[in-house]
């Protein structure tokens, strides 16, 4: 039963999906797809790219499910796959932009999060809006760390793996990201 599967714990779904049950896998995708999409949108800054990222992450998940040691941890694993595929997407986009600066580059230079520039910050009323603007102004590599931490709940070690940098660099970037965000949003002290 489709709706019955929607009530079942992650570990059961992940175990079935690893056995080849596509309905269980789809139930997992429905359950965590919105979180994956939100993460991918914030990382790539593009709605279209985000949906491609979610699809790529799900394809990879299906292929590699039997390598998942702890089925109950499937949510974090799906989010890590989403983070990695988002970073790949950003790298591809950057290479593409470098190789052909003027060809089909519309979205290549779009600021991530698709937010307007600093001049509209006076319009920002809510904390959420202020944070969106501040995030859009953050250096790319700091924003990645911040989103992987705050949206995906990844550990420093997991972020380090995703970004292919050391945990110490993650710690530094995350701290700088937070300081810059706080300064931007309210002024530090």
């Amino acid at each position, binding site marked *: 039963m489709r709706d019955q599967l929607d009530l*079942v*714990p992650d570990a*059961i779904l992940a*175990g079935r999906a690893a056995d080849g049950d596509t309905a269980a896998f789809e139930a997992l995708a429905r359950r965590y797809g919105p*979180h994956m999409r939100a993460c991918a949108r914030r990382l790539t800054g593009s709605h279209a790219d985000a949906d491609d990222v979610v699809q790529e992450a799900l394809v990879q998940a299906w292929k590699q499910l039997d390598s998942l040691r702890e089925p109950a941890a499937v949510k974090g694993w799906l989010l890590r796959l989403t983070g990695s595929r988002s970073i790949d997407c950003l790298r591809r986009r950057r290479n593409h932009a470098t190789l052909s600066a003027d060809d089909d580059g519309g979205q290549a230079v779009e600021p991530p999060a698709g937010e307007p520039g600093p001049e509209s910050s006076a319009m920002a009323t809510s904390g959420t809006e202020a944070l969106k603007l501040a995030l859009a102004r953050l250096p790319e590599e700091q924003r990645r760390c911040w989103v992987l931490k705050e949206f995906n709940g990844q550990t420093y070690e997991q972020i380090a793996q995703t970004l292919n940098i050391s945990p110490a660099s993650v710690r530094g970037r995350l701290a700088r990201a937070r300081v810059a965000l706080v300064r931007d949003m309210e*002024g530090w002290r």
Partner: protein
Amino acid sequence: MSTSHDTLGCGHTLEELSLYLDTGDFPDPGHLDSCPECRNGLDSLRRLSTAGSELFSSDLADAGSGSDDWMKNILANLKLELRPGRTIPLRSEDPLDRLTETEGSVLALVRSVTDSTPGAVAGKVRLEGDVTVPGEAITVNLDLAVVFGHPLLGSATALRRDLGEALARHTELNIAAIDITITDVIDAPREES
């Protein structure tokens, strides 16, 4: 505002505060209670963290539901390949025929019989023993989620019987045992029957 962007007047760094927020580790924990600079810093970081959670909630709401069309489109594009598993030989009247079934189809049968039992949902299924050799003793291991409130013992006995019958009807496996492990209780009272 200090000129260096990561050292406070007290000598501690913002990186230390940021790390403290995530891990609770700080070189000098007592200091945090008495240092106004560090407390201000932590307050700001906590406000940021709250704003971060709010942004995430708002982004999550914007992302829509997993039952919406965008996810249906993605799922339709996935083209998940089947997992046949091992190949299980079947007897044949004609020695020249080579009939087989897949392990995946047997697992699907076990799931299907289990799911049709009221209050039960199958999890992972394992066939232990060499299914590629006819007549080998095979143990079925089934993880089971049970809906809260259903009589567990009764349904396990009935389920074992139903599984035994279905496997005898649809396969030629020599089933030595059917081991059922209740791994989860689903805490969601729901109409079913």
